[in-house]
């Protein structure tokens, strides 16, 4: 029986050992993806210049929780700069303490309406930086401003449109234009992405009444394309010339560069949805009582059948009793929906013609200087048509809120959208310079937890 005891002891030992639950397998080292080859480019000192899309605006404002995901910061991290875009890192941005600048939106979960935060910080936390920021994106910057504006008082919006943007003073801090500050950084690689605002405001204001910005107060004109444009004498500036001068200046830096073109503004969420909670089954009627489903007819200043898009802002304006008339806005022939909320088919064609001309101007000037252009016009149209499938199988699209790409303002991307922008630049850089910058993990910006 001795042998039996020995055997039973053996069984018991194995059973006890095997009975233990398996350990979690250990994860591979979570090292930052790093660039493996630079090709013919030099990424030693990297800087970006542009407008709100470069600044990393989300939800209609700047906030450091979003600025860390500006496309410039994302690419800088892919280039191996640890924590690029965060406070105190080697790659600096004009960070704003959370929740951010005035007017920054947050989502009211109950109504799903984006609403401005009640306690904006407006607190730029590293204004004391003793050198220009590596991210020289300034919200509301026009093409003109890149070479010409040192301060709010000189900005395009102040000198041409009447209202100055204080962010020029804040971010430029009196030490030069975007260009001269870029030069002071002595960059070896530059991303330049300008020109959106030259058409955006005109489009988001419904192109005024029948395309005329003078018909309705507050509708800004677009930037004239060339010296033959009827607006040219008014502004004394044109897009073609501005692009040529800007790219000449970029070339003079002696840095490698990539630039981006302008998306079709009608591909953004702003024109694909109204505020959620306001149900517009068609442009003919609006649901005025969610509980009963009661509808009311909508009246328009522009011919109804000619209207192609309704602007996002209409959702909060419709039905409101502004002016104390007692007549709900848009629901009575006496107070029709104004031309600033609607884009007619003709206006859309006109806007698309202007954007196409701007993009031709950009690609022609870039080709003449051997600068690669990342094609955001194609990117956003493609996403609008067929969505984008991420690595993990998630499909995202341009729909407002439910699409996942656009932030609460319907114009600026959300972090996921910026990751896609970063990859579009990275793909173009790698293709042109033969470099191998790893792509940003887009799926990592979709959270399921």
């Amino acid at each position, binding site marked *: 029986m001795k042998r039996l005891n020995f055997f039973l002891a053996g069984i018991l030992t194995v059973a006890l050992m095997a009975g233990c639950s398996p350990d*979690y397998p250990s994860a591979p080292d*979570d090292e930052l993806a790093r660039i493996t080859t630079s090709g013919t480019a030099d990424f030693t000192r990297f800087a970006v210049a542009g407008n709100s899309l470069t600044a990393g605006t989300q939800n209609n404002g700047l906030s450091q929780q979003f600025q860390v995901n500006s496309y410039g910061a994302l690419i800088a991290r892919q280039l191996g700069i640890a924590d690029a875009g965060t406070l105190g890192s080697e790659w600096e941005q004009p960070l704003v303490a959370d929740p951010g600048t005035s007017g920054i939106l947050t989502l009211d979960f109950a109504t799903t309406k*984006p609403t401005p935060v009640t306690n904006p910080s407006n607190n730029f936390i590293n204004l004391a930086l003793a050198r220009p920021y590596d991210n020289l994106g300034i919200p509301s910057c026009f093409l003109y401003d890149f070479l010409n504006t040192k301060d709010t008082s000189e900005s395009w919006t102040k000198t041409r449109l009447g209202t100055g943007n204080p962010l020029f003073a804040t971010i430029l801090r009196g030490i030069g234009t975007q260009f001269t500050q870029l030069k002071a950084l002595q960059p070896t690689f530059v991303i330049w992405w300008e020109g959106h605002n030259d058409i955006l405001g005109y489009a988001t204001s419904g192109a005024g009444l029948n395309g005329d910005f003078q018909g309705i107060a507050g509708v800004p004109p677009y930037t004239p394309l060339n010296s033959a444009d009827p607006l040219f004498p008014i502004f004394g500036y044109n897009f073609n010339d501005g692009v040529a001068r800007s790219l000449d200046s970029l070339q003079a830096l002696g840095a490698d560069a990539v630039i981006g073109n302008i998306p079709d503004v009608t591909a953004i969420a702003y024109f694909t949805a109204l505020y959620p909670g306001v149900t517009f089954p068609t442009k003919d009627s609006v649901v005025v009582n969610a509980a009963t489903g009661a509808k009311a007819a909508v009246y328009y200043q522009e011919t109804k059948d000619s209207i192609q898009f309704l602007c996002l802002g209409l959702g909060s304006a419709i039905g409101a009793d502004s002016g104390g008339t007692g007549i709900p806005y848009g629901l009575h022939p006496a107070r029709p929906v104004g031309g600033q909320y609607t884009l007619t088919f003709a206006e859309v064609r006109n806007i698309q013609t202007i954007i196409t001309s701007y993009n031709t101007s950009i690609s022609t000037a870039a080709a003449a200087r051997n600068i690669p252009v990342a094609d955001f016009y194609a990117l956003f149209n493609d996403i609008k048509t067929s969505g984008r499938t991420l690595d993990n199988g998630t499909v995202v699209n341009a729909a407002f809120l439910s699409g996942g790409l656009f932030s609460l303002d319907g114009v600026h991307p959300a972090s996921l959208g910026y990751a896609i922008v970063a990859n579009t630049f990275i793909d173009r850089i790698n293709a042109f310079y033969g470099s191998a910058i790893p792509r940003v993990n887009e799926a990592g910006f979709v959270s399921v937890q």
Partner: protein
Amino acid sequence: MNPARSLVVRAMMTLACLIVASGALVAGGFSIYEQGAAATAQGGAFVARAWDASAGFYNPAGLAMYGTPGQWRFYGGITPVQSQAKMTGLDPFPGNGVREKAVDKWFPPFFLHGSYQLNEKVNLSLSVTTPFGLGTEWENDNNTYSGRFRSILADIQVVYVSPTFSYKVNDKFAAGVGLDYVYSKVKLERHSGQAFFNGTDTRVYDVINVKLDGSDNGSFGFHVAAMYKANEQWSFGVDYKHSVSNKYDGTAKFNQITTGISLLDANVASTLANPAFGGTKQDGSTKVEFPNSFVVGAAYKPNSKLSLEADFCYFGWSVFEEVEIKFPESQILATSVLEENYDNTWQIRVGGEYWVSDKFAVRAGYIFDKTPAPTETVNPLLPDADRHDIGLGIGYKLNNQLNLDVSYLSVNFTERSTKSRNVDGYDGIYKSHVNLFAVGIGYAFGGQ
């Protein structure tokens, strides 16, 4: 169908419905080769010997070979299985270091074999076994399990009722052939999600819980086997079991999960209420194919106390291509497909027993079990991996009629990584372990 046959089938169905059991991932894919306690201790290397009534599963030819005319033999038991699995995520999704754990589960597969030796040559037997089974469920407290949009719960419950005819040609050679009546049930659960920008990040929200509950009220397969006793020392066996196609019809249930976001909730509610959706409770169906298997083995008995055996098992897992769920009543829901694309695979089983005395035996065995799952389709529904199993056990003869076997099998999964190549975009490293305990009681009477 003639009345007698119909009665037999109905009896089988009733029996099967009563005792259907699910299993853990004991062997490659979701096969369970442990249908007798004495064989289990020896790593299942039994096809060339098959001397007890579990031969009904391992090699029915053994029943005729070792039966005594007029003798009834029964062998029944359970094989409690404890299954544990853990996963560490990989980039890009769910991300390096994310940890998930399967619910620790106990499954009670069972086996029941009965045989009657009609005369010198003929043996009739009936075996009720659970040669396949699956039960994986991942912990999903507060809907935070990262794989919940792929699979939360997968449960396949199977029972085979196998009547077999075996025939002893002479003292050296016997053969058997039989039918397999297969009753099985399937349960699948997962969540559907909707991406939504919530103001700070793009989140996928859980919006619908989907459950499929189906059963297959009878599919048929067959098996054939043979045994050759060359001499007192050497014997050989082969066993073939045919593949079985199972079609499960049942009910799919869609329960809305409210998110507290009015727009999202309203959208989902209106989708579910849309007549084209087909209703929150509608028909759902799926198919699962169980593979064929071919086992060949050789046994060596150097003396009356010791016997050793080595088997090679081949499983035709390439029939398992996908888990497809159809919703015939819905005009909106697309057929959901989880790719599996299994490869044919094999196992090596070696084992032996030593009779310490006339009454008492000790047994041990080892199995190398090559996974049929390709790297790309390893998923939380079936986190398959190569396995190294160790079996140990004892046998005790109480008297000439009663014997008892107790066994333990440790199923050691190797670590399995999807290497960020999973077809469904869910990557991780899986580590599993299974403890299997088997108790069998044999009872024989009649015959001389």
